[in-house]
């Protein structure tokens, strides 16, 4: 909390200001507004390309791993749920928040690693950035999502370090958590549009 002066005049009827949403969370939400529009832009561009194509999916391209990614999506959703749980625990009992928090972090990292593994396989099967419109959009959209996931995980890891040292404030946890909820929340849309 920053110190806020009351002024040189004693004011009885003017209460001090208490923000509805903390600075960090509000700032993060504003950032995520832009990122939401970024995904909206890419996804609608993809939808237009798909609708305008005479043959879809483009011939000679590998099938996207719908089932494996569905399982991986569940891992990501579980990670988000665990983080919600951790955040709730943190406001009651700080110690008990650690386990779900680091479980969420681990599952999130697992999601990104599995996606990377999937990319390597798809590139091996001939789906590349240049091979077709599907490849271009797939790597663009999923890649931008992965970049967000990695940034959010890095932020969560820093939050975790603070948590271990006992310096973590609830608003700091909330700031990093909101970022991760965005990554988790936008993924089902990406999955639904790109993979199906």
């Amino acid at each position: 909390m920053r110190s806020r002066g009351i002024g040189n005049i004693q004011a009885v009827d003017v209460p001090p200001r208490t923000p509805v949403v903390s600075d960090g969370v509000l700032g993060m939400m504003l950032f995520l507004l832009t990122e939401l529009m970024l995904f909206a832009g890419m996804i609608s561009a993809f939808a237009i390309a798909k609708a305008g194509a005479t043959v879809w999916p483009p011939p000679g391209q590998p099938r996207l791993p719908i089932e494996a990614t569905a399982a991986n999506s569940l891992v990501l959703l579980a990670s988000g749920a665990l983080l919600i749980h951790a955040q709730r625990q943190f406001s009651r009992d700080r110690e008990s928040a650690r386990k779900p928090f680091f479980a969420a972090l681990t599952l999130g990292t697992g999601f990104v690693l599995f996606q990377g593994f999937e990319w390597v396989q798809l590139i091996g099967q001939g789906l590349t950035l240049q091979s077709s419109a599907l490849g271009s959009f797939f790597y663009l959209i999923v890649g931008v999502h992965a970049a967000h996931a990695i940034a959010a995980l890095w932020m969560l890891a820093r939050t975790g370090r603070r948590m271990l040292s006992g310096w973590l404030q609830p608003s700091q946890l909330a700031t990093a958590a909101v970022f991760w909820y965005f990554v988790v929340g936008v993924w089902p849309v990406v999955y639904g549009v790109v993979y199906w």
Partner: protein
Amino acid sequence: MATAPATHEEHDLGHHEQSFWEKYVFSTDHKVIAMQYMFTGMAMALIGGFFAYAFRMQLAYPGMEVPGWGLVTPNDYNQLVTNHGAIMIFWVAMPVLIAAMGNYLIPLMLGCDDMVFPKLNRLSYQIFLLSAVVLLSSFFVSGGGFGGAWTMYPPLSTKAEYSLTQLGSTIFVVAVALEFVAFLLGGINFITTAMNSRAPGMKLYDVPMVVWMIVVASILFMASVGPLIAGAIMMLFDQNLGTAFFDPDRAGDPILWQHLFWFFGHPEVYVVLLPAMGIVAEIITTFSRKKLFAYRTILYTVFGTGVLSFTVWAHHQFVAGIDPRMAHVFTVTTLLISVPIAEMLFVYIATLYGGSIEYSTPMLWALAFLVEFLIGGVTGIYLGASGGDIYMHDTYFVLAHFHYTFFPIAIIGTYAGVTYWFPKMFGRHMNEFWGKVHFWGTIIPFNGIFIPLFFLGAGGQHRRIADFTVYPELAQMQPWREFATVALLIMLAFQVIFLWNFFYSMFRGRKAEKNPWKANTLEWVAPSPPPHGNFPDGLPTVYRAPYEFSHPDHDEDYWPQNEPPAEQKA
């Protein structure tokens, strides 16, 4: 005195003595960052103005050796107009109107000591400076700077065999992308500060109009820039990684870029317009000694304009290829958006009505803004209607129209703001006489430049042609082009007066007291110039709305926001 300010002061005065670098280069103080943005913007304006000079000389006297540039080849010409547009919008209008004015005014007008995220703020400027350097560096790579217009339409921007600037095109996109990151960080700061750091007692309806306008502009920017970032990534991929997002030969769609660009590009007009409208609102209330007419109506109008501005973008594609049914929809929304803007102009005129108007230099600029922007708005109606646009598209009529909107916004609005807040920024007054000379020396030639361009455009003169004398039917209009260029030269010459007045007054001007214009908002409570931490006597408390001029219950004709009511004084 309450105890809270004491702890606050300890917090501020606890700073060690700052070195030059800490104080002026790597500062996190919002005022220093505002000045950095302003001076960088001014330097870029000189470059953008120089570009305009070079290509206007070529248009008026084709094939001449332009003093200071040399022969303007067709390739040079394309680079000059492209970068003139990009610089004036992204590196002049945005940094000066939003970043400089926002950074300077928001914490002062809200009565707090700094932005909510000062380090993010510093990073914002550093990225902005980097983006400017990156853009200018494109002129020195092989092939030169990008020349495919500031709107970067593919295939000119994506295919090196058309643009002939392989590296220049990529550098251009990277520079614009960096600039967006800078304004993203700035916008986060502005909105969060306005929501969470207002002075005690300042309700949302007590926030000065210019702060609201900058906040709404930031929201518009942040909500509209996402699709353009998506487009910029796709363009960089097309340029460098062999994808075909915008390449029709390989199942891409070049019109897609236009949609992504203008989804941002049209709200962007309002992103820069609103801060200028806010600056004008502050000035006309102060210099007509009247309460701002219909504060809440303006505010709702601004929100309405913001929402509506997301639904007009495809009027830029009337000719590019759009379903005629969609063209009708976008014609309606485009014409509709002139309603709230016209309403704001009327409300401003209502504020002036019956006021005791003082024609100071800032007031002259503010009034000129209303008049000149009106011309820009009215000529836009011809272009917003798809039928009219098909005839006018890509002519000088379009060019003259948007210069009648952007020049009032970026130049007149900035001069209004700078002359109004100069005493606060530097603790000294600018010279009024030379201020007025500069005003008339700018406004008259400005109309001299662009009114002829309306005629040229209506006569069928296409944009983006370096030499019109090769077209017999256009060659006969050469006197108009020469007239516009001479007017530009006169206008540029008068800017020297401003620069001299600005820098001379900064050091030698008449000293200014705290509240030289007798205005009400909180920035006038702080000393001129405000020290680090802004309010050395403790942060102010707010008791009333920002525009209580000539209030019947008050003896003086102004009533500062922080002045406690009479019964509390006793």
